[in-house]
């Protein structure tokens, strides 16, 4: 007798825009992390189980997740049968012993996280690929680095130094250009030969598209969803807004950036060319839910002024040892 097993009404992971978040990007587990680092795994797990019914404090990625769910609500209204939605997945190498506490916390904050992997210490890479993760956010820079090396868009999230109110009905994502959306090829020239050579080079190669960087795919995924709103006449009211926030200058090197995006069939809603000025104040005005940069200097600057900033450990700028999220917090607070 052939065993006929029905398949669950399954969303195909490749149709969704999957954002994988780690448990420490989602919840504040500083005290627990201290116990793990100082007293080891057994005490850490004991503590978590003892405090199981206390929900964790919500943390840095919460506004992103709320905004993402707001976009989903709008998408479902316009396209009720579509699987092209955001899907937030909890991806943690934590042991399943912590599972009940994490689930209790997710319930407490009524987060729309239905899928999770708790790998008990094993590497997350295979699971990130199995889920076709479009973006992986973690507080652990080593895991983020590993993911980037495997070609997965990833960033280490840092808490802002102060709470900024961000829009609840529009998801705003800000990207640095070089070594985030684009490769680090131009940054290498700047670092090796200085600013003048950099301007010269960029002007000379204005019409040659830059190679792509680790987060190009994520911008592309956001663009696809934006198109769905435009198709229904909702360009002005689109609940997704993207920003390019670059140290390039509008007068010279900026052109190559814009032309590159155009050659990929992509665009950002706004492009801010700061010509080397600090990014913090500009981001403070924009109020994005998250900002991606490859340089810790900019990440810290943004976090200081209240933006959720995420470090993309890619390219030539990664010569200095990456700070952990807690180091940054200690510096800021």
């Amino acid at each position, binding site marked *: 007798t052939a065993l006929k097993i029905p398949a*669950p009404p399954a969303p195909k992971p490749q149709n969704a825009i999957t954002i994988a978040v780690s448990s420490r990007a989602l919840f504040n587990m500083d005290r627990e992390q201290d116990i793990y680092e100082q007293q080891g795994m057994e005490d850490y797990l004991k503590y978590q189980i003892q405090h199981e019914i206390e929900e964790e404090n919500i943390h840095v990625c919460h506004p992103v997740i709320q905004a993402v769910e707001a976009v989903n609500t709008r998408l479902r209204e316009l396209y009720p049968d579509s699987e092209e939605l955001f899907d937030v997945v909890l991806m943690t190498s934590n042991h399943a012993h912590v*599972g009940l506490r994490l689930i209790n916390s997710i319930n407490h904050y009524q987060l729309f996280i239905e899928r999770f992997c708790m790998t008990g210490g094993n590497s997350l890479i295979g699971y990130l690929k199995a889920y076709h993760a479009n973006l992986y956010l973690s507080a652990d820079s080593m895991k983020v680095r590993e993911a980037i090396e495997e070609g997965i868009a990833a960033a280490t999230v840092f808490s802002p130094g102060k709470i900024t109110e961000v829009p609840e009905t529009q998801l705003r994502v800000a990207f640095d250009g070089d070594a985030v959306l684009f490769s680090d090829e131009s940054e290498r020239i700047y670092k090796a030969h200085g600013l003048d050579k950099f301007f010269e080079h960029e002007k000379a190669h204005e019409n040659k598209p830059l190679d792509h960087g680790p987060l190009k795919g994520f911008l592309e995924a956001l663009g696809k969803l934006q198109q769905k709103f435009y198709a229904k006449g909702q360009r002005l009211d689109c609940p997704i807004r993207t920003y390019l926030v670059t140290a390039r200058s509008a007068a010279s090197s900026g052109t190559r950036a814009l032309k590159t995006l155009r050659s990929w069939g992509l665009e950002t809603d706004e492009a801010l060319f700061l010509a080397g000025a600090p990014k913090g104040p500009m981001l403070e005005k924009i109020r994005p839910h998250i900002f991606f940069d490859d340089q810790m200097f900019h990440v810290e600057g943004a976090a200081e002024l209240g933006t959720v900033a995420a470090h993309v450990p890619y390219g030539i700028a990664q010569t200095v040892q990456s700070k952990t999220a807690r180091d940054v917090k200690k510096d800021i607070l």
Partner: protein
Amino acid sequence: MEDKKNCTGPLMIALQYNDLFDLDSISTSTDTDALPKGRAFTFMKAVQTVNERLVEQNKSDCLLFEVILISKECSEEIKTKIVESVKHYGLEIGKFFFCKKEELINTLQSNKVKLFLSTERDDVYEALHTGIPAALLYDQADDHVFNQLTVIFSGDVIGFSEDSLDGLSEFGFSETQIETIKTAKICMKEFAVLIGQMRRRFGQENSPLCTCVLTSWGSRNVCASALKTLREWGLDVDEAFCLAGAPCSPILAVVKPHILWDGGLLNMS
């Protein structure tokens, strides 16, 4: 010294010989001394690793795995070949049973088999249907590690309430299938209790035994219910996966379990 009266072992697992040896490639095999290795090989090696580590901790530990081999009808020549091959590979097989297909269920019952493992879903389902604890021997890739035995329990079977299980009929499950799933839960419990005892012999890290919960259909709360129930049964699992309808094959390909208790719920196409 472990009190014999309190001894809850051994944990008897039954394998079929066509899972242990690859009978299809006999003609192409160059090794004339032994039958070619089959799909259960990495499982056997992993089980032996667990036993070794258990004995390392406590020489008189009686809660060990014991594997028995069940063969359906075959010639004397094949019977000898099987026994010789087992010896050749150094496999720890406790007993051999050569019986007709109709006698399979009786053989399993009378030998107090705690788990019948097979790569054949229909065999697993049929055994479960008659109340024999049975799980899928997940098809292993050749390069799987030998130093850890991985067991997956179905979070749906354990976590869903009676009512919710009845509600599965709306998804196309037959009455028989639903009854089998309920039976599977009872079977899983006994096995989970024993595995829980075994798991506790080792620490969190560097354990030769890895236990997981996989919730394929249910929500995170079904998964939470499964975690709680397993804990009540004495097993705190190491890994947990909640798929909420997403396909399970990609995840299984990463976890690479040896033993997959799905109760007849998982569609792995």
